[in-house]
């Protein structure tokens, strides 16, 4: 695989162009070309297709796409290009197993295959905005879910009464504070070695993330450090500085990407190819050993529509069959927390990703908008789903997803807002109220009736 220094050579000396030229003249034509050449067609009747050939064509299309357009550095205004051979060599050499955490909480995470009969890694938690006063309890509640193996800690965006601003010293303080709270929450749950594998979601700036990674604050190289691009395939010095730092620290680096269905990549076909091609950006530029994806639709903003389920399902299958590294996906429900629709949308998304061969994470309610909207019961639901549906096939998942979509699609644009953490949990005992428990029990009963299992 090309070294990071060789990558930086291309970041510094690649062809110069504006970001708009990259989008319009390089990226968009390359996506259209790849969709056409490999005859990728979205079929709304099969949101989770059991089609290995389609998955492999998406992989080939993604290779073509990334070889045609590479990535773009907004600081140097350079196009970072790789040959098809360099990309394939990087895929061949990238780690297929990653170790996170310490002691009894250490996790070995391997890639899976579509229709796999193994338990996916259960990742829990949320990097969504959470107030400081409840963040610690949230992490403790996540870690108390014994089926959960890795965790995201909340984004705490205030320090005292001061609101964090991206790039400001308050953000650095907030990032440090978040790592402290995160590790302390895990200790309180008796799982001090449990790996925190999201990026420091409190921090937008690279400098704040690097500051928060000091082990004195509870951070470890055996945690996972996610570095984000921005749409599509763009990176800047702030992110590249994180790569330089985390690779030299010897830490696990994750790449994350959230391509937008309806954005530069176009429809479901182009978005599926782009979602997968981010793996190449991740392996070569971010030096990622694990991958998180969260493609999302532009209108309505969520990831549970037929087009989005197709994107996540087919790109995950293509990844699992052809790359095989640790991979997981985060979904966004249109419905708010503590609603029947939230659990139905979540089940559809989880069925798609588990059967397609990747790891699971709880689906974020209410499009991840708002403060204190994620609930620990969301995480319990996803873990219980993963354990109850080991071996779920794409064919079975497809049938169930279609039934679920018939129920929730009519209200997806105007989904119920639900209730946030402070409205439906006793913050002393961290127990959900009776109303939420009833909604949860009813949803489980309904989903069991559709052929899903929960353990």
């Amino acid at each position, binding site marked *: 695989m090309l070294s990071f220094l060789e990558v930086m050579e291309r970041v510094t000396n690649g062809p110069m162009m504006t*970001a708009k030229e990259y*989008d*319009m003249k390089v990226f*968009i034509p390359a*996506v*259209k070309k790849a969709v056409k050449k490999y005859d990728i067609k979205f079929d709304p009747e099969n949101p989770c297709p059991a089609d290995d050939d389609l998955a492999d064509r998406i992989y080939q299309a993604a290779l073509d796409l990334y070889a045609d357009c590479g990535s773009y550095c*907004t600081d140097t205004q350079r196009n970072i290009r790789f040959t098809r051979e360099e990309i394939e060599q990087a895929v061949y050499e990238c780690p297929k197993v990653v170790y996170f955490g310490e002691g009894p909480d250490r996790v070995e995470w391997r890639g899976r295959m579509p229709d796999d009969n193994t338990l996916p890694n259960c990742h829990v938690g949320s990097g969504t*905005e959470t107030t400081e006063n409840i963040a610690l309890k949230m992490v403790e509640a996540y870690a108390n879910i014994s089926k959960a193996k890795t965790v995201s800690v909340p*984004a705490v*965006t205030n320090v005292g009464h001061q*609101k*964090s*601003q*991206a*790039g400001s010293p308050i*953000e650095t303080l907030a990032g440090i504070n978040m790592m402290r709270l995160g590790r302390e929450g895990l200790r309180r749950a008796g799982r001090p070695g449990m790996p925190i594998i999201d990026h420091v979601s*409190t*921090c*937008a*700036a690279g400098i704040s993330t690097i500051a928060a990674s000091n082990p004195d604050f509870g951070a470890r190289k055996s945690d996972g450090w996610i570095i984000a691009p*921005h*749409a599509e395939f*763009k990176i*800047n010095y702030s992110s590249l500085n994180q790569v330089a730092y985390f690779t030299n620290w010897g830490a696990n680096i994750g790449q994350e990407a959230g391509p*937008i*269905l*309806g*954005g*530069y*990549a*176009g*429809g479901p076909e*182009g978005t599926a190819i782009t979602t997968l091609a981010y793996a190449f950006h991740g392996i070569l530029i971010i030096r990622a050993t694990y991958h998180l994806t969260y493609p999302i639709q*532009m*209108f309505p*903003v969520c990831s549970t529509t037929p087009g989005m389920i197709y994107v996540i399902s087919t790109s995950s299958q293509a990844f699992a069959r052809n790359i095989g590294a640790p991979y997981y996906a985060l979904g966004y429900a249109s419905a708010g927390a503590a609603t029947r629709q939230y659990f139905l949308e979540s089940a559809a998304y989880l069925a798609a990703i588990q059967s397609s061969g990747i790891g699971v994470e709880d689906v974020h309610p209410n499009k991840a*908008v*708002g403060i204190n909207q994620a609930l620990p019961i969301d995480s319990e639901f996803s873990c219980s789903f993963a354990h109850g549906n080991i071996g779920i096939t794409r064919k079975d998942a497809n049938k169930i997803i279609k039934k679920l979509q018939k129920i929730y699609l009519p209200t997806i644009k105007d989904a119920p807002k639900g209730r946030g953490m402070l409205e439906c949990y006793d913050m002393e005992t961290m127990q959900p109220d009776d109303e939420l428990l009833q909604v949860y029990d009813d949803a489980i009963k309904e989903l069991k009736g559709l052929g899903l299992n929960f353990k």
Partner: protein
Amino acid sequence: MSQKELFQQLKNALMQGDSEALTELVKANIDSTDPLEMIQQGMMPGMAEIGDQFSNCEVFLPELLMAAEAWEEAMKIIKPKLLEMGQAMEKRGTIVIGTVQTDIHEIGKNILLNLFTTAGYEVHDLGCDVPAAKFLEEAQKFNADIIAASAIMSTTVTYQKDIIDLLESRNLRDKFLVMVGGGVVTQEWADKIGADGYGDLASDAVVVANELMAKKKGA
């Protein structure tokens, strides 16, 4: 070719994002057809239709951007002719738009930029990572009616407030309408910081801008 056929062809070329075909049509007919009519009868209906198709998820951002690019290329030929003839396009208003300081997410802003253009606004794109002072400087330079500021992250939305604070500190708050939007922005936040307008979706933002401009013109 009849004028009706010409307008239809202009519309089609624009909707297909075919810059070459559109500019050829414009060049070939600019001396024999009123350029303002070419815009109003051919190109603008095309932009409006593709804007609607985009809002209904019938086409996606690449098609919208390609149509906008074709529009820009055609306008490079039409604008000098309009000036020569002493004509001007009627515009709904002038908007400066950008993503706030430290925020590098541009898609939402780019969509809105194109929808505003489609809706008949003169739009000036300030790009991303735009400090409050730059919003103000450009708004003054273009005599803008609206400052539109996008922020996608919970840690960057506060820079939207900085724009309003800056306007207030310079006693310029009444001179510009301020619209805010972006992934994590809510009506509640817009109200809290005293923004004039907010749209949940890009298409909502155009409606809000139209309402704000109608009020401004009525005032």
